[in-house]
């Protein structure tokens, strides 16, 4: 597009990095929080602050809970009603039961898949979900929001924009832009080994920002690349449903062949059938794993063709001790005999499962978990410094021209960097302030998050007029103060409303809650230090002569 290939890459890096960088901030920041999603859940749901529990008895607890799920969740039904050629009937038939847990879960997620008739998709289901306390089977209130796993985690890959899954596509394009930005960033800078050791915080803001951008980019280069790529690969079925959409005969031929080989029918028989003791199957599965030298708990339990004569039960070992996901053991529902055991995956499926497992981290390895968290934070810093560099490089020229470009970029940067953290701290505060039995408590919490974020945008826009005069916006410092106050307040409120103050949680070694509290305090301290420095900086009348190459 330009005189040479480096200039084209610089354009790509600058403009895609800017426009989609705002999305990438959301993906990487909430992705980082998702590393500790279960721990954040414990903080936000005090009644679930108990030790992790294994999969409970199916016959005594799960069976009766599954039958209480009589319809898909409203949003699932709504989405399914758009995929059908005939109106969706009022009553839908339950077709699948599933229950999943990990070594970090004191509560158990359960779902029922309802067959969607006349769908434009093959084998389409709409899901109804509940969360139970596995000790006695009681169902947790639906309007209690699991902030980590049900809000922050889906935010990082869907932005909570459910309309035609558009959020997934925006995040996917941003992940692609991230991969392209990494490639073009390497091409632009070339002196990659030197960047590794170059950080001159004492230099002018422009230079030190670029140093930090390059340093965080290079130090965690494999992380940035692999997490963006594996995030895409996890949802390959959404982004490239090539075989399902245009090669149905091939897919069906494969399904028939596989069903003949495994004895697991693809479609329900339509004849009523019975279900033998699933507890006996679970025991058989555990015994089989123990005899293979890989004893473990059940991570995922799945019943297909519920109520039919060809119903089968699939049991998967949890992934505590390995990265890739497991091979399943499949039982005939009516008799409980083993129908089929998945063979070890082929080489390509193993690579796929490894990339997926690495990104989802079901394994028990706290050092690695923390490193992944640090990687996500480094990605966030890399993106944030990209915005700051963009503004610092242009604001003088824009001020001289009377052009508002830098001002708007700065306002959006404040909103997606400090504003996002403000909103996150604010929703934690609201989580502790709202009455426990408030109806639609989850909606209140989510709304408070979005409103707080919107408020930071308004604030950032208002304060960014300073950028029009080539000065630094006070919004950076003020929102940092807000983070410091709200972060500390969340810790205090947790102590006051639940009694689980740090003295108690640390003494008891209850790390999920102690960890969240400590991270909030750490964030509050960093934000306070940053706010002081930013205030000092904002007071200066900065005069910068650009000293960086012109291509960035």
């Amino acid at each position, binding site marked *: 597009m*330009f005189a040479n290939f480096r200039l084209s890459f610089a354009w790509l890096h600058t403009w895609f990095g800017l426009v989609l960088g705002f999305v990438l901030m959301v993906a990487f920041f909430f992705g980082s929080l998702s590393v500790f999603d279960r721990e954040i859940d414990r903080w936000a749901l005090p009644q679930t602050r108990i030790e992790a529990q294994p999969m409970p008895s199916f016959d005594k607890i799960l069976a009766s809970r599954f039958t209480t799920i009589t319809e898909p969740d409203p949003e699932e039904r709504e989405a399914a009603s758009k995929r059908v050629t005939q109106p969706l009937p009022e009553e839908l038939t339950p077709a699948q039961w599933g229950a999943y847990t990990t070594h970090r879960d004191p509560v158990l997620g359960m779902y029922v898949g309802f067959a969607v008739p006349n769908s434009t998709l093959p084998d389409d289901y709409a899901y109804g979900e509940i969360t139970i306390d596995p000790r006695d089977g009681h169902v947790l209130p639906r309007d209690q929001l699991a902030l980590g796993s049900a809000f922050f985690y889906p935010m990082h890959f869907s932005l909570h924009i459910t309309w035609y899954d558009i959020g997934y596509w925006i995040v996917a394009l941003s992940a692609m832009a991230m991969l392209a930005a990494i490639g073009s960033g390497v091409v632009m800078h070339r002196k990659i080994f030197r960047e590794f050791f170059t950080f001159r915080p004492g230099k002018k803001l422009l230079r030190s920002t670029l140093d930090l951008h390059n340093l965080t980019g290079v130090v965690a280069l494999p992380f940035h690349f692999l997490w963006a790529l594996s995030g895409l690969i996890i949802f390959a079925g959404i982004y*490239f449903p*090539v*075989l399902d959409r245009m*090669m149905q005969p091939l897919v069906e031929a494969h399904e028939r062949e596989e069903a003949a080989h495994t004895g697991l029918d693809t479609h329900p028989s339509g004849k009523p059938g019975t279900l033998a003791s699933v507890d006996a199957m679970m025991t058989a599965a555990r015994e089989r794993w123990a005899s293979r030298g890989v004893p473990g708990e059940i991570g995922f339990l799945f019943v297909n063709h519920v109520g039919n004569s060809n119903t089968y039960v699939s049991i998967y070992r949890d992934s505590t001790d390995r990265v890739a996901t497991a091979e399943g053991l499949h039982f005939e529902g009516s008799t409980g005999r083993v129908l089929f055991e998945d063979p070890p995956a082929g080489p390509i499926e193993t690579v796929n499962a490894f990339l997926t497992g690495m990104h989802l981290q079901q394994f028990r390895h706290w050092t690695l978990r923390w490193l992944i968290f640090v990687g996500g934070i480094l990605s966030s810093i890399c993106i944030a410094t990209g915005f700051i560099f963009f503004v610092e490089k242009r604001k003088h020229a824009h001020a001289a021209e009377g052009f508002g470009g830098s001002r708007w970029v700065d306002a959006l940067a404040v909103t997606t960097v400090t504003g996002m953290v403000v909103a996150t701290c604010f929703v934690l505060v609201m989580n502790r302030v709202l009455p426990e039995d408030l109806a639609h408590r989850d909606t209140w919490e989510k709304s408070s998050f979005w409103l707080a974020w919107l408020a930071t945008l308004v604030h950032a826009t208002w304060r960014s007029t300073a950028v029009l005069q080539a000065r630094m916006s006070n919004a950076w410092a003020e929102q940092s103060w807000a983070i410091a106050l709200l972060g500390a307040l969340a810790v205090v409120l947790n102590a006051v409303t639940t009694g689980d103050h740090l003295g108690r949680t640390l003494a008891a070694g209850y790390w999920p809650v102690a960890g969240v509290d400590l991270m909030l305090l750490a964030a509050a301290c960093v934000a306070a230090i940053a706010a002081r420095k930013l205030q000092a900086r904002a007071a200066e009348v900065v005069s910068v002569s650009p000293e960086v190459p012109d291509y960035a």
Partner: protein
Amino acid sequence: MATATQSSWHVLSRVCASIFGSYAFSWGFIALGASSLIGFGTEFHEASSLTSMLGFLIYLAAFCWAFIAASLARVWVVLAGGGALMTAVGWWVSRGG
């Protein structure tokens, strides 16, 4: 960008080619690759996984190439045209060729 010599329409066309042209090209690659591999006897899931994982890397390469290629017309022909052609051939192969 003092070096930007192209009209905004040209830039927009590049951006569209990089986003949508690359998608068509990757879709075609997966369609042709998966159906051919399965036709040659590769296990179904292995073929599907391999081509969709490579599909993302092909998208990345096509996305970058759309910005550095000299001729914008060639970019569109190769990405959209090539994607459509591979999709058609892949479909034909999947029906038993």
